[in-house]
C-alpha cells in the first residue's frame, strides 16, 4: 500500500471514529443493544411528530400596542396643553397612527408647534387637510417598527417566563413565520395543551383603580346618567355582578372607573394562590406590592378610607372585585372570584410572570399523541432498514465484490448522517426519515453510476486499474452535477419552506454531502487498495 493510500485510510478511519463517537458516545461505550438504543435516543433530537407533544402557533395583535401608544399620546398631549394653557378645539384619534388636533387658538399656535416638536418626537406634524387651524400628527414609521419589535420581544420573554414557570420539559419558544408577528411554542410530551394555552394567552394586566361610580346594569344606563358623555379621565369597565350565592355569577354590570390606575401588575412583588376564607371550596389569589408602590397605595387608601371611597381590582379590563376601602392598606391585596385551585395557581403564575404587552390569537394547534409518534418511529425505521437490506442484497448479487464495496460506502454514509445530526443538534422529523430514504437512494445511484462506467471501460478492453480510474473520473462530474442540483433545491426548501419541509431539507443536504465523500472518496480508496493487492491483469470482481 503506498503512502498516499495509507493517508486516505487514516482520514477515513478518523472520520469514522468521530462519527461513531457522535452516534454512541465514547466515555461510556454501550454494552448491550438496549443501551445502544438508549444512547442513540439521547443523542438524536426527535421532532414533535415523532416524540409526541403540542405545537402552537400564535399571532401577537401588534396593532393593540400601536393603538395604545396613540391613546397614551392623546392623554399626554391633553395634559400638556392644559398645563401650558394652550387652547384647542378638539383632539381626536383618526386611526391607530394618526391624531387630529382641531381649532388651535391662533395666539398659541406657535407654542403648540414648539410643544409637539420638542416633546412629541415620535410624531410628524402637518397641517390637516380641510382645516383652517388644525394639525395632523402621524406616528413615524421608525417608531411603529420599534413598537412592533419591542412588543414581540416582550411577548416572547413573557411567554417564556410563563411556560418555564409551568415546569414543562424542553419547551421551544421562538419567532416564526414570515409575517413578523408570529410565535411558535412547542411543548414536547404535552398531550392536551388546553391548560398551557390558557396560561400563555392570559393577558395578566392587573390594575387597582378608584371607582368613580357604579355599578350600573347596562352601558346605556351608565351613559344616561352623565348625559351620554363620561366624565373626563374615566372609563366604563364591565365586571361580574356580586350575587347572593358565593361563586355564582349573575350577569354583567358596569363600573365607571378612573382611567389612570393607582397600581399596575408591574408593581407586584409576588402573587400566590390560597383557599378562600370567604367562599369555602374556592381559591383566591393574594399579591404583595413592591415598596415604592406600597407607599403610593398606602397614601391613596388612607385618603379614600376617610371619605368612604371604593376601589376596583381590574384584570384584563374586567372588574373582579369592587369594594369600599375601610382602612389604610399597605402592600397586599387579593383577587377573589370563583377560582378553582388550578385556575388560581395559574393566575398567580401569570401575574408573577408579568403581563403581555398585547393580546394574542392562536393560529395553529397540533397535538401528536405519544403512541402515534412511537408508531411512526417504529414504522419509519423498519421501512428504512428493510429497504436498505433489500438494496444491499441486490448490490452484492449484481456487482459481487464491488457490491460489498458499495454496501460499506452506504453504511458509512448513514453513520455520518446520523452522527452529524447528533453533533449539529438537528431535529429528526418524519419527513426527515423520508430524507434519509432519499439519501440512501442517491447513494445507491452514485455507486451504480461509477460501477456501470467501470464495466463499460472494461468492455472496451481496458484492464482493471485504468478502468477503475476512468470510471471514477467520468462518473465524478455526473455525481457532482446531480448532487449540487439537489442541494441547490434543498437549500431553497430550507429557506422558504416550513417545519416539516425544512426537516427534510436538512437531512437531505447532510446526507448528500456525506454521500459525495463515501461514494467517491471512500469507495475509491477501497478500490485502490484492492487493485494494489491484485495482479495487474487479473479480473475485477464487478
Amino acid at each position, binding site marked *: 500500500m503506498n503512502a498516499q493510500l495509507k493517508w486516505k485510510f487514516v482520514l477515513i478511519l478518523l472520520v469514522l471514529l468521530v462519527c461513531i463517537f457522535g452516534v454512541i458516545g465514547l466515555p461510556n461505550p454501550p454494552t448491550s443493544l438496549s443501551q445502544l438504543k438508549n444512547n442513540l435516543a439521547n443523542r438524536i433530537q426527535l421532532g414533535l411528530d415523532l416524540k409526541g407533544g403540542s405545537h402552537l402557533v400564535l399571532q401577537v395583535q401588534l396593532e393593540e400596542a400601536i393603538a395604545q401608544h396613540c391613546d397614551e399620546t392623546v392623554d399626554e398631549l391633553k395634559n400638556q396643553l392644559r398645563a401650558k394653557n394652550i387652547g384647542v378645539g378638539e383632539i381626536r384619534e383618526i386611526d391607530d397612527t394618526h391624531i387630529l388636533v382641531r381649532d388651535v387658538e391662533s395666539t398659541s399656535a406657535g407654542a403648540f408647534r414648539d410643544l409637539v416638536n420638542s416633546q412629541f418626537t415620535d410624531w410628524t406634524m402637518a397641517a390637516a387637510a380641510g382645516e383652517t387651524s388644525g394639525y395632523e400628527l402621524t406616528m413615524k414609521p421608525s417608531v411603529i417598527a420599534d413598537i412592533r419589535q419591542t412588543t414581540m420581544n416582550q411577548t416572547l420573554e413573557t411567554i417564556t417566563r410563563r411556560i418555564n414557570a409551568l415546569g414543562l420539559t424542553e419547551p421551544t419558544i421562538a419567532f416564526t413565520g414570515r409575517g413578523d408577528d408570529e410565535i411558535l411554542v412547542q411543548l414536547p410530551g404535552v398531550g392536551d395543551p388546553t391548560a398551557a394555552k390558557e396560561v400563555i394567552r392570559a393577558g395578566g394586566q392587573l390594575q387597582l383603580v378608584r371607582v368613580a361610580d357604579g355599578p350600573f346594569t347596562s352601558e346605556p344606563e351608565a351613559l344616561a346618567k352623565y348625559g351620554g358623555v363620561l366624565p373626563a379621565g374615566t372609563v366604563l369597565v364591565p365586571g361580574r355582578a356580586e350575587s347572593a350565592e358565593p361563586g355564582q355569577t349573575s350577569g354583567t354590570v358596569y363600573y365607571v372607573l378612573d382611567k389612570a390606575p393607582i397600581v399596575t401588575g408591574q408593581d407586584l412583588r409576588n402573587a400566590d394562590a390560597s383557599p378562600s376564607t370567604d367562599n369555602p371550596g374556592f381559591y383566591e389569589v393574594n399579591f404583595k406590592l413592591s415598596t415604592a408602590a406600597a407607599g403610593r397605595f398606602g397614601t391613596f387608601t388612607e385618603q379614600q378610607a376617610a371619605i368612604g371611597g371604593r376601589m376596583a381590582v381590574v384584570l384584563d379590563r374586567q372588574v373582579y372585585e369592587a369594594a369600599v376601602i375601610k382602612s389604610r392598606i399597605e402592600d397586599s391585596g387579593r383577587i377573589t372570584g370563583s377560582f378553582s385551585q388550578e385556575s388560581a395557581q395559574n393566575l398567580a403564575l401569570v401575574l408573577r410572570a408579568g403581563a403581555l404587552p398585547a393580546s394574542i390569537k392562536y393560529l395553529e394547534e*397540533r397535538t401528536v399523541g405519544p403512541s402515534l409518534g412511537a408508531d411512526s418511529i417504529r414504522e419509519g425505521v423498519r421501512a428504512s432498514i428493510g429497504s436498505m437490506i433489500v438494496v444491499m442484497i441486490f448490490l452484492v448479487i449484481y456487482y459481487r465484490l464491488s457490491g460489498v464495496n458499495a454496501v460499506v460506502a452506504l453504511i458509512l454514509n448513514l453513520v455520518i448522517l446520523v452522527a452529524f445530526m447528533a453533533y449539529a443538534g438537528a431535529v429528526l422529523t418524519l419527513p426527515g426519515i*423520508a430524507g434519509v430514504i432519499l439519501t440512501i437512494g442517491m447513494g445507491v445511484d452514485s455507486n451504480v453510476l461509477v460501477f456501470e462506467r467501470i464495466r463499460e471501460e472494461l468492455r472496451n478492453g481496458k484492464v482493471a486499474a485504468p478502468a477503475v480510474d476512468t470510471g471514477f473520473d467520468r462518473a465524478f462530474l455526473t455525481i457532482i452535477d446531480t448532487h449540487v442540483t439537489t442541494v441547490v433545491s434543498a437549500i431553497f426548501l430550507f429557506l*422558504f*419552506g416550513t417545519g416539516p419541509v425544512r426537516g427534510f431539507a436538512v437531512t437531505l443536504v447532510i446526507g448528500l454531502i456525506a454521500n459525495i465523500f463515501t461514494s467517491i472518496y471512500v469507495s475509491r480508496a477501497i478500490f485502490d487498495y484492492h487493485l494494489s493487492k491484485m495482479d495487474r491483469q487479473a479480473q475485477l470482481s464487478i
Partner: protein
Amino acid sequence: MELFRGVNINWMGKAKYFVALSLFLLIVGWASIYRTVVVKHGTLYGIDFRGGTLVYVRFAGPPPIDQLRKGLEQAGLANSTIQGISDTQNVASKNDVVIGLEQTQSDESLDAGKQKILDVLRATFGGGASAKPDFNSVTPPDLAADLTRKDPLLLGTNAGDRYTQLASRLTAARDSDHGGIVTSFDQLKNVDGVTPSVVSSLSNDYSLSNFAIRDADIVGPRVGSQLRRQAVLATLYALGGMLVYIALRFEWVYGAAAVIAVFHDVLITLGFFSLFHYEISLTVIAALLTLVGYSMNDTIVIFDRVRENLRLMKREPYPEIVNKSINQTLSRTILTSGLTFLTVLVLYLTGGEVLRAFSFAMVIGVMVGTYSSFGIAAPIVVAWNKYYGGKGTTVRAGSAADKRVVAAARR
C-alpha cells in the same frame, strides 16, 4: 451479473408515443382534479392547506361509527366527517378513525371544534363524568407525580426518581406495546418494576376509556393560506435554482427541458393524487420536492452523457447521439430507478398511515420521473436542436471540469 447489455433502442423515434402517453396521463389526472374541484366543489388540499380541524382517534375495538356520528350531531357538529383507516400492516389501526371538521368562519376560538369533538368522545365513550382521570391519556410527569404521592412500593423518602422511571415505562408500555390503549390494568403486570400493589393503586385511581387521541390538528385560515403560498414559492424557487444551475453547467435549453420535464412529473403526480383520493399535505409537498430532485437527477445523468458524446461523436446526427446516450445510461437508469422504486414501495407498504400519502407520491413520482427523462426532457432538446438547425448545441468547452472530461475521454 449483468442485464441490459448492448441495448440499441431508437428512443427519439418513439418520442411521439411518450408525449401521447404523457398527454393521456395529464388529461385523465386533471379531468379528475377538475371533477373534484369545479364539479363537486371539493378540494385536493389536506387540512394543512385548507385549514380546519382533524382529530385522529383510536378505539379499543371496532369503531362505533354510528354512535359517534349521533354524538357529533347532537353536539351540533353535523357537518363533521368520519373516516375509517384501513392499514393492512398495522392490525391495531383498523380501529382508527379520523374526525374532520371544516373551518368555521365564525368568531369562535380556534379550538372550539376540537373541544366539542373531545367532549363528545368523553361523554359517549369515556367513563362519563366519573371523577377518575383516564389512564390512556395521562402523561408521564402526571403519572409520576401521582405514583410518588400514592407510593405503592412503600419507598418513602428513598423513592428518588424510581417513580419517574416507572411512570415512563408504564406509558411506554401503553403507547408502544398496546398501541396507546390499555383495556385492563392487568395488561401492565409484566412491565419491569410493576408489583400487584402498583396495579391495584392504578386501578383505584384511574379509569380506562376505550379510546385514545392519536393526533389532533387545528389549522387556522391564515396559516393555511400562508403554508399554501410558502409551499408553492419554495417549489418555484427550487425549480428556478435548478434551472439556473443546469443552464450554467450545460446550456439554457437543457435547463429548460429538465425543468419542463420535472414540472410535468409534478402535474401527473397531482393528477394521480386526485384519482386515488389522497389529500395534499405538507408531507406530500416534501414528497413532490423529493421527486423533483429525483427526476432531475435522472435527467442530468442523461444530459451529462449527451454532453460527453457530443465531443466524441462529431459526425453523428444529434438525435443519434441522444439515443446512444440514453442507451449507454439505460442500465444505470433501470438499476437506480428499480432500487429506488423498491425502496419507496417498501415504504408505501410498511411505512404506516402517516407516511402513506408521502410514499404514494414517491411510487408514482419515481415511475413518471424516470420515464420523463428520456420521454420528455430528451425529445425537447432534440426538437429544439432540429428546429434551430444542425448540431448547433455544442457545449462550450472552457471550465476546468469540462476539460477533465475531455482528457478522460481521450485516454
